[in-house]
């Protein structure tokens, strides 16, 4: 049983992983991530890449909604901007993949700052509605600037090339998507060891008090939108390289709701929450598909699956919010506490 761990410096106190056991588990995770592509088939690799992209985007949204308290339904718009930027650069200029992703992130970031301006006047539900406008405007831009964006037909993205290797399969894309996601996650986690992160949390808890304490709301709220949409832009760029075809319909409002649900179910305000929420939202439909496939329903299995999936999905989200409002991260922490405190219970 691990009791306390005395820290002897501020740096040690703020460390992300503070014990040898934790580091050992991180090493196990890293090893399994490295080994996974060699043992998984095409379908699982596809899911893994999709989960990684969703983790990146959910982390961005968690930063904005979970840590800064600014509810946003514009995540899909920023992803779309990132995706289209990457697609246009790749098609027209053939610039390197990482540069394109960075550019996608920056374009989304600039859009995020603009969309974030209402947050200075408007809060909560009303801000959420204001951010829906981002999605509508983005959709309009994607459909009507046809010379640049291919209009309603969208764009077909040629595969990325890194160091001469053409990334045209899930196996190859895995080696780019997962490290980038890991980097984004570590960056976000470390952000909350700095002044900026603490300012975000202060704004979430009570922004008027935060202002009184000397945190300039304008700067930090817009910074939150900027960083969050940068993450969304990079995730959107990875989305473009992964799906290789993007249209204005690829980034609907329902996608923003997906990510918001992932943040809430995973646990608002925790990095672990972003990961668990994204994994949950992406994999539960697939797991349900598997389960319904096992049931002896024969021909009508396919017809039953989709409504069952929707019902179970919605039910799980509702049950989570009733029984565990802090999300999957809290469930995880409870299980951890069980191991730490055993043989005691609390």
């Amino acid at each position, binding site marked *: *049983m691990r009791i306390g761990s005395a820290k002897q410096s501020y740096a040690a106190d703020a460390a992300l992983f503070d014990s*040898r*056991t934790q580091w*050992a*588990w991180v090493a*196990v995770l890293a*090893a*399994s991530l490295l*080994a*996974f592509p060699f*043992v*998984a*088939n*095409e*379908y699982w690799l*596809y*899911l893994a890449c*999709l989960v990684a992209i969703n983790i990146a985007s959910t982390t961005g949204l968690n930063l904005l909604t979970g840590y800064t308290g600014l509810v946003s339904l514009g995540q899909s718009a920023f992803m779309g901007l990132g995706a289209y930027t990457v697609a246009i650069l790749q098609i027209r200029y053939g610039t390197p993949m990482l540069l394109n992703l960075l550019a996608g992130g920056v374009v989304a970031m600039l859009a995020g700052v603009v969309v974030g301006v209402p947050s200075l006047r408007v809060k909560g539900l009303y801000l959420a509605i204001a951010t829906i406008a981002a999605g509508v405007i983005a959709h309009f831009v994607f*459909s009507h600037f046809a010379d640049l964006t291919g*209009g*309603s*037909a*969208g764009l*077909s993205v040629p*595969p990325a090339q890194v160091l001469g290797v053409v990334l*045209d*399969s*899930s196996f190859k894309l895995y080696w780019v998507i997962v490290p980038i996601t890991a980097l984004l996650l570590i960056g976000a986690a470390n952000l909350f060891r700095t002044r900026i992160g603490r300012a975000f949390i202060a704004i979430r808890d009570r922004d008027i008090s935060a202002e009184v304490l000397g945190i300039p709301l304008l700067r930090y709220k817009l910074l939150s939108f900027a960083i969050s949409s940068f993450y969304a832009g990079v995730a959107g760029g990875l989305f473009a390289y992964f*799906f*290789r*075809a993007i*249209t204005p*319909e*690829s980034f609907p409002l329902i996608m923003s709701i997906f990510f918001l649900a992932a943040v809430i179910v995973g646990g608002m305000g925790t990095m672990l929450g972003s990961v668990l929420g994204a994994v949950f939202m992406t994999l539960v439909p*697939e797991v349900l*598909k598997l389960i319904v496939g096992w049931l002896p329903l024969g021909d009508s299995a*396919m*017809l039953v*699956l*989709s*409504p069952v999936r929707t019902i179970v999905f919605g039910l799980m989200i509702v049950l989570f919010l009733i029984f565990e409002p802090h999300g999957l991260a809290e469930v995880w922490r409870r299980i951890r506490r069980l191991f730490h405190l055993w043989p005691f219970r609390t």
Partner: protein
Amino acid sequence: MTMKKRTFMAATAATLASLSSPLLAQAQKKAAKGGPAEDIVFGASMPMTGVFAFAGIAIDAGIKDYLSILNESGGVEGRKVKYVPEDTAYKVDQSMAAFKKITSQNKVNLYYADSTGFCKAVNPELERHGGILMTGASFAKEISNAQKYPHQFMVGPDYSEMVAILLQYIAKTKPGAKVALVYSDTEFGRDPVEAFRTDTQKLGLKIATEIVTPPGSVDVSAEVIKLRRADPDYAIFHGYISAPIPEFINQARGVGMKTQFMGTFWTMDNSTVMRMGPNADGFMGVMPYRYYYDTEGKSPMLEKIRKMRPEYQATGYMQGFLAAMLLTEAARRTLAAGNELNGKNMKIALSSIRNFDTGGIIGVPLSIKGNSIPIGRVYKADFKQQKMVPASDWINLTQ
């Protein structure tokens, strides 16, 4: 001591996990190789739920029925065809996931795609995979480009060809007529606009107006006013399944317009048109296939279908039936010529189809040259009989 025990347990758990996954992967890989005397696998991304469910269920039934007829009579060169569908709710990412799942668990040679978006997204995968010939529910003009989509084809005319067939009919019936195009602001809707503009000019028809409606719009009174001002002889709707066509027709008839309204394939299902209300009597449109209840002309296949399925089957059924017919025919020709079953060989075999008798599904023998089959007939709605009846001969754009 506790620390060491815990780290030991962690290490064991990790080793066990990492050892068991290769075993699982091996089992899955074995399944993917298929058994001896292999079944030919026909995969499908089927929109069984969602906005396209009415079509998906019908297409699924059509494919299943044709494959059962085929398997009963010996299959393809002695090999049975196994149908492996997955529901996609008409969403591209779910379609991709279904494709990846089916192709990782089976050796797939034939595939049915549910949407234009999926056909485009999966095209690079198809080229990399190399072993699949694909068709689908999409009639997008882009996919009729055989260079860009070498392993795909369409079971019918593309949307531009459908509009061209309608315009040919109009030019024959009323030369120099004024034609309007009403389309939805989606990729589906915008598909034939270019063709509309060029073909009206070529056939000596006049463009009365072009009206765009936002997708999912319910109130079309402003557009009806525009249509009324243009006063066309014919108005072609494209990019819709039903709504807002009934609103257009009812409001137009209400203000006394005598325009002849027409639609394209996905609007033409019997139940869809009959539900448009009595004002839609005389509604015309282009159909690449016969209807379930058609008895004019010799259609042995239709009679077989009517015996297998006593209740009315939607137009999607014909599309799925014919898709299965053509895909398996391409596979049969490839195997009969002694070639390996891959996308390239099957496409060559498909393009060798000349004067093929579909058993009456399409009223004339068909030949496949490019990626589409530009044959169709104009049908007219007869509300007294509650049926769509033929209003023209079979129009073949390649002749």
